[in-house]
């Protein structure tokens, strides 16, 4: 008992030290920002003080404008992730499941994957219009590639023995997919979706800042054009918090359910 006690105490205090350091970093950044704002080295309008930003955040969160646009953007990101994720998954399964498909197509995926998708935006506008359609398309195209590549790689990393076990028990194709392949590649697939969601978010917001009349990206640009810097910073903080929260939730999903 005594031994476990001495073991857990230093570990707990180490955890506390990490937490303290994390808070300290945020606190010192805030202090630095405030000092920079007060120093007069930069225009105060460009670097507003913390009180102005807090006021901006309050203003933002109490107007309906923010929520209306948040809903638009969230819907676009969701649709983009679903479309890009599902098609990416199907593409990844066929790439990972067949050596022929891999040899024939995977190269293109690796070339197109890192290409900035925003260069296709003019095309998307022509095809899907200036409304939500082109934003969803941008997000879906961005999401497609990381999901496809992650699923293909995950499929190849499945230990062959587990597939042989499934075969020896005479699992049919559907059972093989749902009871062997998918659970065996859960981690890489969820990580692929996480990555896909991240780039879908980037794609949608980027498209919104380029040409649109609604959405959070549109609000950012609108605030910028009005030179409402506190409002813009407030928006950036809000978007940042949302992105972090969703990513953390997805991360939990990839780790959960399976103890190590």
């Amino acid at each position: 008992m005594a031994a476990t006690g001495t073991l857990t105490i230093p570990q707990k205090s180490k955890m506390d030290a990490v937490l303290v350091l994390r808070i300290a970093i945020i606190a010192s950044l805030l202090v630095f920002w405030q000092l920079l704002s007060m120093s007069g080295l930069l225009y105060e309008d460009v670097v507003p003080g913390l009180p102005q930003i807090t006021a901006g955040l309050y203003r933002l969160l109490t107007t309906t404008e923010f929520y209306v646009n948040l809903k638009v953007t969230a819907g676009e990101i969701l649709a983009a992730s679903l479309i890009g994720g599902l098609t990416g998954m199907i593409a990844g399964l066929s790439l990972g499941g067949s050596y022929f498909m891999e040899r024939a197509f995977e190269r293109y995926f690796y070339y197109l994957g890192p290409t900035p998708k925003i260069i296709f935006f003019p095309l998307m506008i022509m095809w899907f219009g200036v409304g939500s359609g082109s934003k969803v398309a941008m997000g879906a195209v961005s999401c497609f590639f990381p999901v496809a590549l992650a699923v293909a790689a995950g499929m190849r990393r499945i230990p062959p023995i587990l597939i042989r076990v499934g075969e020896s028990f005479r699992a049919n194709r559907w059972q093989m997919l749902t009871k062997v392949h998918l659970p065996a590649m859960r981690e890489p697939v969820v990580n692929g979706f996480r990555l896909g969601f991240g780039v879908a978010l980037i794609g949608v917001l980027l498209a919104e800042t380029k040409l649109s009349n609604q959405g959070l990206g549109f609000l950012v640009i609108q605030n910028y054009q009005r030179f409402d810097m506190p409002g813009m910073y407030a928006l950036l903080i809000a978007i940042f918090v949302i992105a972090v929260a969703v990513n953390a939730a997805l991360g939990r999903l990839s780790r959960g359910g399976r103890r190590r």
Partner: protein
Amino acid sequence: MNDMIRPEQIAQPPVTAPEPMLVIDHVTKRFETPDGPVVAVDNISLTVGRGEFVSIIGPSGCGKSTLFNLVGGLLSISDGTIRIDGEAINGPHKSIGMVFQEDATFPWRTVIDNVAFPLELQGMAKGERLERARHFVSLVGLHGFEKRYPAELSGGMRQRVSIARTLAAEPKLLLMDEPFAALDEQTRLLLGDKVLQIQQELNQTVLLITHNITEAVQLSDRVLIMTYRPGRTKRIALIELPRPRTSEMLSSDTFGRYVAEVWADLREEASRGMQDAERGSR
């Protein structure tokens, strides 16, 4: 010597075998390689009777794992036939349950869910399959570990999960490929005892592939000794040790004699294999 070697049994099924369940009939397996066809299994014949425990032993590279995959239906036969209860095998058969050499448990499933896997595939209702799985978990001595994940178990326990999972499908023939090869000697002996006990309890027919002579003699009624490349039948040895057997018999004189006799046959083949390997590495 003579009570063991019965050359006439090499070609024909032994008279002692009670109603043959598995018949391996002049089976050959060729693999196509860039350097031309390679014969891995050459004209092997063997029958396994109901309730019998038969081992196939041979040096590394003799094609015994190929034979395992042929009987399991995971590889196609080039010549000859394999029948179970008169039915020719062309693909995994429901009457044959395979246990693999590698750790083959599903890491994302608990012990009980691993064992219930084949029942789940059959579409058995949840309550029924869990009850049945629980029975087989206890049978391999893992009672109390139902909710654990494979990563929390030792190698020997994981292999027992695999055996329980295969038994849960209630195969007529339990087909095992060096199931204890990755385990340490003590675990191997204890697990051998466990398998014997289960075999006795279920009157399970077993075909075991191994390279371990002690294991083969300890467990089997008959041992088929394979030659090194191409894999042919060298001899089928009858092990007439009384049952029930345990690892405590390992020190008896008769046991030692059987081991020595099997080794005498195997030695020649193993050294051929070793020379081959040395030539290859030169």
